[in-house]
């Protein structure tokens, strides 16, 4: 049976849409490279890591302090959010009575939906002054880690919850028949069975922590320096783009696209590492 003319038109229209949808990721990379090329040609990639400082007005382009800012904020928040999120999911699945459990799940979903600018605003007016009382100025790496933790916690909690829900009930019955306590079941049976889902959650939250811009810009103080302590203000790669893009021209603008490329590079490396390291289910 040969397809009708209508069907052929339909399929080619759909293919057209799919080409557009599929091409966007490629377009993004192409445009980042195009816009980054002028400065890369002039000063080379190497100087983005070896220059004395970040001062585009004087042709100095060191991104490393901001790279450290991004990595430290990411590491801190992932380290705290992962146990909190996973145990939140454990609470939902194995400890809470059904009514509380569904309420708590709804709450985490709401938490996931709050926009980053609202988190940032709350951090700025509530959290930063609190930290400032402890150790001025308050806008700091610590504030950034705290806000990021709250923001990525729902991501890991919801993925962990979904992967716990997929653990075969037979496993749990087997554990119960062996007389294992609830905690021993969770640690010895549920975690190993759900590890691939937990791993996906870890990758998702890490990506979110690296890419977050507004909230971290609002609470971190944005001084270009490698933070020496938790109370030092600092600036992340994402915040740097958001802060300077408005007035950047020429090489400066181009350098911001280089930091965009670096961000994309980190995300791609993360996804690649995930594919290599992913534990088999």
């Amino acid at each position, binding site marked *: 049976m040969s397809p009708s003319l209508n*069907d052929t038109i339909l*399929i080619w229209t759909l293919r057209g849409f799919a080409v557009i949808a599929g091409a966007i990721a490629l377009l993004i990379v192409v445009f*980042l490279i195009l816009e980054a090329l002028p400065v890369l040609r002039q000063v080379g990639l190497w100087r983005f890591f070896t220059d004395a400082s970040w001062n585009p007005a004087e042709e100095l382009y060191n991104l490393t302090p901001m790279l450290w800012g991004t990595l430290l904020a990411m590491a801190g928040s992932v380290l705290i959010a992962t146990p*909190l999120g996973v145990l*939140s999911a454990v609470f939902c699945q194995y400890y809470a009575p059904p009514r509380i459990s569904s309420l708590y799940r709804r709450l985490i979903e709401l938490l996931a939906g709050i926009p980053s600018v609202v988190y940032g605003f709350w951090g700025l007016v509530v959290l930063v002054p609190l930290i400032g009382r402890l150790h001025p100025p308050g806008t700091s790496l610590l504030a950034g880690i705290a806000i990021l933790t709250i923001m990525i*916690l729902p991501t890991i909690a919801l993925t962990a919850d979904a992967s716990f829900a997929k653990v075969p009930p037979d496993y749990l019955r087997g554990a119960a028949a062996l007389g294992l306590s609830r905690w021993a079941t969770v640690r010895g049976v549920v975690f190993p069975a759900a590890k691939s889902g937990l791993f996906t959650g870890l990758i998702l939250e890490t990506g979110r922590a690296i890419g977050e*811009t507004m909230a971290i810009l609002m609470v971190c103080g944005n001084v270009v320096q490698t933070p020496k302590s938790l109370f030092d203000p600092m600036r992340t790669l*994402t915040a740097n783009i958001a802060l300077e*893009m408005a007035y950047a021209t020429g090489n400066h603008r181009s350098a911001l696209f280089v930091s965009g490329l670096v961000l994309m590079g980190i995300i791609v490396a993360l996804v690649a590492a995930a594919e290599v390291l992913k534990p088999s289910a």
Partner: protein
Amino acid sequence: MSESSFSTASNRQFSTWLVWAIALFVTTIFLWILSDIIWHGARQLNWEFLTTAPRSAGRKGGIAPIIVSTALILGVCMAVSVPVGVGTAVLLAEFTDTENQFGRLVRRSLDVLAGVPSIVFGLFGNAFFCKTLGLGFSILSGGLTLACMVLPILIRSTEEGFRAVPSHYRLSAAALGISRTTTLWQLLLPAAVPGLVVGLVLGVGRAIAETAALIFTSGYVDRMPESLLDSGRALSIHIFDLSMNVSGGDANAYASALVLLVLLLLINGTAAWMAEHWLHRRITPS
């Protein structure tokens, strides 16, 4: 023996205590954020705030033009992303084998797109829509940038909607000799509407929450937009600007944050309600 059973028992108690404490901690923080925004925002919020223009850089006055701009940006975003997204989802779900190279390529590309940080979308939108296509800082640029951003979410849930349609629909239609176009329009699309609507709602939620992708695509101008080529300030950018760049803007920032939160809660509530009550129901012969 007795010692080890004792340690297991205290271990058990400790773990139960720990898990409950964490849940309580997370709940407290959430309620803290929410009550802070509601408490401070509700005092500023009234009809006048929603219907007048901002004065003195937003310290006084309301957010009427900002609501209009936000709605226009969302409108552009959805007008572009829905046809492209639904079209792609239909192709992936109905007309492509899982082994198909093209389909795989598109899926992989969408996975990458879903992981792109929003600020990078902003860079791209600025370079492509504002500069290369010459749209400048405008509602159109902002909406198109957001459209790129919400595509992966939209496609994923629409595709799931189509996959939830039982395969005997397609087989029966084919057996009756109905063309695939007619099958799609008359049978599959109506049956897949729940997935589509949930995707739409999630997409709107993501788009309305976005700030970073809009700062240098749709811009900062807080006047009432006259066309899609005017720059317009989204609600999230208004909050950002008031809290960071305008001293004394906190009160109105709180009120704007409350407006944004209420909109989002409504949107997410709708999505959750639909997912629960509607998505699992399939059209059945009555």
